[in-house]
Every structure is written in structure tokens, then in C-alpha cells.
């Protein structure tokens, strides 16, 4: 069964097919909840602004999506301590589907970097983590018409299973292999990384969107990107975020 699936992937990925290329430009807002035990056991939550650039290549049996997003959120805890979270994410989705099927599935690579800056702490007030992970992804999409206008509803989900991440140190802002260690870049990196594996660190996302297809071939969509991340490194950090993005999609080829 596995061999059949591999053959299927190879066949559909090498076949000469018609391709569509789209560029996405999106902006919106982000709701953010987070907790970082390097600072506090308390939950911080708030809102911020988001911007995103995307690219989609669509073949008959495969969609490849890249989404680069930038967010800055101002959060507070229940005692009004402030924390600014700046996040950059890069999501890659490779979704395979059979002809005329509403379902597609494949794999994803998610990359995230978040820098947090807490107010009122004079030292070690910045904490940063970066992760790269891989895992399965799936999508469902259906199209419909209202008053001769065409719409598509699509929902994508992904779960990150394996990868690695670099968190801030147990106390220090820098990862444990840097700053207080006389290490070069490679040794410092090696001493700082944690493995991303099932039961340890966790990241998953859910992305529903409603797309309105214009007569020009371009489209406008409303997107909600939910993502949960849990990093269990030197100090446990978790965040639960949702981005509402209005996206303009331009066909470029």
C-alpha cells in the first residue's frame, strides 16, 4: 500500500500538467493568547496587526502553498503587565488530490519565530523561540454559486510531528548554547536545539477561508488562520493565535 502511494505521488508530481500561479497579499488582525514560564505562570492575551504574502501553484492534482506572515501583538495579563509578541511564520503546504475530489492531503512544513518582550523586567526581558517542523496536512474544498458569482470554501489543517526548535535559555534570553557559552555558531546551535516530536513539542493549525472569484481571474478571500504551538524547551511556552486576514489573490500566469 505504501509503495503504491509513493508511486502515486511520484507520478502526479512529475506529470506534465497545466499550472496556475497566484500571488496573495493579505492584511488583518491577530488575536493572541500565550504563556511563557520563563516569565510568569500567567496567561497573556491581546490583539495585534498581521500582514501576509503568499504564493500558490496549482496543478491538476497538486497545490503548493507558501504563506509568509508577520504579526505584532500587544498583550497583557490579568494584572495588566504588558508583553509584546512579534511573530514571523512561514507555512508551506503540499496538497495532493484526485480529479473531481473535494479532499486533498499531503504534507506541510511550518516555521515560526516569535520574540517576546515583557515590561517591567530589567534583565532577560526578551525571550525568543524559533521552530521548523514537518507533518501531515489535509484540505477540503467546495465551490458554489450565488447570483452567478462563484465562491469557494476551503479548509486546510496541518499537524506538525517532527522537527527541531531553539528556545531561549532557562534564565537567559539567548538560547542555552549561546551567550554564556564560549561556543561558535555550529556548536552553539547544536547545544541549543530541542527535538520536535509527538508527545513533546506540538504545533497544529486550522485554516478555513471563503473565496470570491472575480471575472478577471483574481479573487478576494476572508481567511481565519488558527494555530496552536507548545514548546517544552528550557521553559515551557505555549501560544494560541488566530489571524483574520482579508486576502487579494492575483493570478500571475
Amino acid at each position, binding site marked *: 500500500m505504501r509503495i503504491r502511494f509513493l508511486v502515486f505521488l511520484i507520478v502526479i508530481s512529475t506529470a506534465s500538467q497545466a499550472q496556475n500561479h497566484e500571488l496573495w497579499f493579505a492584511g488583518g488582525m491577530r488575536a493572541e493568547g500565550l504563556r511563557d514560564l520563563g516569565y510568569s505562570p500567567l*496567561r497573556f492575551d491581546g490583539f495585534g496587526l498581521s500582514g501576509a504574502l503568499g504564493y500558490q501553484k496549482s496543478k491538476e492534482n497538486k497545490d503548493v502553498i507558501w504563506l509568509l506572515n508577520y504579526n505584532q501583538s500587544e498583550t497583557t495579563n490579568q494584572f495588566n503587565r504588558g508583553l509584546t509578541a512579534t511573530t514571523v511564520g512561514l507555512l508551506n503546504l503540499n496538497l495532493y488530490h484526485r480529479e473531481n475530489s473535494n479532499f486533498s492531503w499531503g504534507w506541510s512544513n511550518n516555521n515560526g519565530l516569535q520574540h517576546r518582550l515583557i515590561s517591567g523586567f530589567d534583565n532577560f526581558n526578551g525571550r525568543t523561540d524559533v521552530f521548523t517542523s514537518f507533518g501531515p496536512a489535509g484540505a477540503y474544498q467546495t465551490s458554489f454559486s450565488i447570483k452567478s458569482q462563484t465562491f469557494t470554501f476551503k479548509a486546510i489543517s496541518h499537524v506538525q510531528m517532527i522537527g527541531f526548535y531553539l528556545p531561549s535559555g532557562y534564565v537567559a534570553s539567548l538560547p542555552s548554547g549561546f551567550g554564556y557559552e564560549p561556543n561558535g555558531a555550529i556548536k552553539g546551535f547544536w547545544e541549543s536545539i530541542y527535538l520536535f516530536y509527538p508527545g513533546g513539542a506540538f504545533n497544529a493549525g486550522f485554516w478555513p477561508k471563503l473565496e470570491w472569484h472575480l471575472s478577471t481571474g483574481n479573487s478576494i478571500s476572508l481567511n481565519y488562520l488558527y494555530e496552536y504551538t507548545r514548546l517544552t524547551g528550557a521553559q515551557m511556552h505555549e501560544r494560541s493565535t488566530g489571524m483574520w486576514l482579508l486576502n487579494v489573490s492575483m493570478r500571475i500566469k
Partner: protein
Amino acid sequence: MSCEKHLLGGDGEASPTEVFEFLWKDINNRYSYFELKGIDWDEVKQRYTEQIDEHMSETELFDVLAAMLFELEDGHVNLTSPFNRSRNWDWFQDEPLNYNQGVIDREYLGRDFHISGPLRHQVINGILYVNYRSFADELRDKDIDAILQRAENARGVIIDVRSNGGGALNNAFNLAGAFTNQSYTYGKVRIKNGSCSDCFSSWTDLRVPAREKGWYNGAVVVLTNSASYSTTTYFSEMMRQNPRALILGAPTGGGGGSPAFGELPNGWTYRFSSTQAVTLEDEHFEIGIPVNVRVDLDKSEEDQGIDTMIERAIALFN
């Protein structure tokens, strides 16, 4: 709209027991000087647990937690609530002050002293006297240029950092770097990197950077007292390792651990030492930097407007 936060769960209880346990445990995991100070933190917990009562007031809880932290004998340890800030200032309150600002203002700085940023300076008997009250006050390049220019024709320089409670380490680097043309190592530092008692990073060198824009190559005397603390302790050791400098006065108060911060489940914040720093002789900065020449203020001289330490420093240049 913001259901995202609910997926993280709530904040949990902030009962006196929860708050006490959280503080005790985090200090247990991240404080850096238990071994040096011979503190049995488990025993401390036993004594203070008995004083925790679920019905106690916020003030009573604060007092118990503050008393527990007081046992760390560390000026970098505080508990901060909306109504009070605990501290342990025994490191200077049990020692002679050895500093009289009024005498310095009247008899040494006078009315025509120069002000360069946070530095106040005056030429006294051909020696440049520089008074720096707090390393928290930013020292800019042009401030150092000003004292170096004035020191060109001086027989020596006195840097008075008595009762300077510390501040930003960058200011100490910049000032110490003005008295050397070569970068040099003055100590080592390491940080807690895990919860076990001996979980520390490797020792890494602490270095004074050489100043690129010119430096003073004459003799320097640094005045310290027991209220010279934290960054001032670091500065004293930087200068003690400079072959052209002498430390005169009383040992500094310590403060060798860089303070980290935390927040309790009830919103109160605390700070604590999370690093260790040692001299090239493996003596902890935390216990204070020794002096090359021990001098205390003479009370009878002080009453006559004489600062014994400044006079002794001036005499060293003769």
C-alpha cells in the same frame, strides 16, 4: 472573537499556599548562590510553610514571603507588590558609610566643577577628581572625552564610585575602557541553565574592551565603600585588574549575580540573582571586591570638612 486565549486554560489559583509554593520553587530552581552562602533552602521552606494560612491577608502573606527572601542575604533579591517592596540592605547598612556628599560638594567639588553627563569633576591639587553617582545614568562617549581631555594635564585621576548602587554594565565597560588601550579579562561568569543546584553554563570570560577613541595612560585611584554595589562591584574589579589603577577605601558590597525577574500567580513580581561571577582568583563578586588600600573616613576629619579617602588618594600621587 478572542476564543484563542481560552484554549490555553485559565490562570489557576493564587491562594497563599499556591503563591508561596511557586515562589519557593522558582527560587529553588533559579537562584545562583545557595552553595556560596550555605543556605539550606529546604529547611527555610519548612520554617515558613508553617506561617502560611489560607485566610491570611495580602499584607501578612507579603511579610512572610519577604522574610523568606530576606534569608538569601542578597541586595538583588526583592519582592514587589502594589503596596510594598521588600529588600535586604544589610550589605551596606551594617557597615560604616564612608561617604559624605555634603563634604564633597562643599570642600572638593566647590562651585565651579564641571558636569559631563552623569560625571561631576574638578581638578584638585593637579589631580582630576571624578564623581559618578549611579551607573544607571547613561555615560556617553562625549562624557568620557570630556574627562580624558581634562585629565591630559593632570597628575592622576580619582574615580569616586562610593555609594554608587550600580546600573547598566555597559557604562562600567565604557568607563573602565577609558583607562586601557588593550582589552583584558577581569573575571568569569556563568548562569543557571537548569533546575538542579549545580546546573550552570560554562564559565565565560568577562572582558574590558579597549577604547578606540583615546585613553588615559596615567595612574588612577578608584574610591569604593560598602554601598558600592552590583555594576559598581564589577567596575571595581575591572579597575583592580588594570595595572595602572588602585582601589582605595572599603570593599564593595557585592551584588555579583545578575538579577532575573519573575511573576507570581497573584501578580506580584520578584527578582533574584541568577548568575555567578568570580575574579581571576576565583573569589565571588558576590562577597565584594577587596581594596588595595584600606581607608575609612575619620569622623573628626569629616567634621572638619575633610574626606579622609580623597586626601589619602591625593597623597598617593605625590
